[in-house]
């Protein structure tokens, strides 16, 4: 057991779990369950199409530039690994290949530096 293992406040944790469970189901049910066979407004669909490519990069960017493991100091091996994952993913369109390229780059550079 390392000191890194922390325990979340139980109320917070269960609020998040239950809230996300209910919220995620609501998001999935809203159209197929409630709208049924009616059509959706175009402007809404047009925005929903970009949620994944808009929100996931916003989540990842700070983790790449200011990694938690280095106490927020920019880190060469991690930046290079992120770049390699993105490049291989763009070229191959293959999720597994991109993950392997990123992980390989990270381990190789951490080994060389460390």
């Amino acid at each position, binding site marked *: 057991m390392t000191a*890194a*293992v*922390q325990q*979340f406040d139980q109320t917070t*944790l269960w*609020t*998040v*779990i239950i*809230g*996300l*469970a209910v*919220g*995620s189901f609501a998001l*999935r*049910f*809203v*159209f*197929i*369950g409630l*709208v049924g*066979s009616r059509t*959706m407004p175009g*402007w*809404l*669909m*047009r*925005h*929903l*199409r*970009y*949620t*994944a*490519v*808009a*929100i*996931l*990069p*916003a*989540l*990842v*960017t*700070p*983790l790449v530039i*200011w*990694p*938690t493991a280095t106490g927020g100091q920019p880190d060469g091996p991690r930046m290079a*690994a*992120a770049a390699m*994952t*993105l490049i*291989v*993913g763009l070229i191959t*369109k293959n*999720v*597994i290949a*991109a*993950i392997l390229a*990123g*992980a390989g780059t*990270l381990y190789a550079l951490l080994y060389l530096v460390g």
Partner: protein
Amino acid sequence: MASTTPKSYFWKGIRDSAPFILVAGPFGMLFGVLAAEAGLKLVETMTFTVTVFAGAAQFTALQLMQENAPTLIVLVSALAVNLRVAMYSASMTPYLGAAPLWQRAIAAYFTVDQSYALSIVQFETDTAMTVPQRMAYFAGTNGLIAPVWCLATYVGAVMGARIPESWALDFALPIAFLAMIAPMLRTAAHLAAAITSIVVAILAAGIPFNLGLLVAGFAGMVVGARIELAMTHREATT
């Protein structure tokens, strides 16, 4: 093709989804491991994964909770990550909207990246499918992958905190998400949305309560939608 039963479509769904074991297995395991490292008990991790059933949102919530973000921000951000399943739900509605409500409710719960991606291609190609056949195919795309996802989470959660720090698992999440994003950047609009999101996320890093994530995500969505609109206008005029 008239003799094709819903049952055979179920098995086609199972077969078509088999390669996704390679994605759901490692992702589920990673969630289990990271949750255990964050101090979640086995029962908490499993309840999380079985009730929420949305990998990217689960990872987001876990990450923000570790950054001590306020509970409301954790919920809103994770649900924002999950907004795309609302789009999947909307996009499948013309094909499954006529099914009984209880079936639609179950289908809603199982609407995830891979079941949507497989089903929408199948529905668009095989236009002669009946609603029960479509529902059977959709059930098949989850019949194998959903149990694999839960089992993998369990294995990861049990292995959990025993994984040494030298494995650099802190960076597994960024790599997994970047690998997911890259193949999605198919059009100029998708690319513009992602670049906007990155730039705004950097500029907004100082905003408290991790609100920068929502600001950047919203900016990316608006830019993506705007560029798409501009591109369709240009096509219409030429």
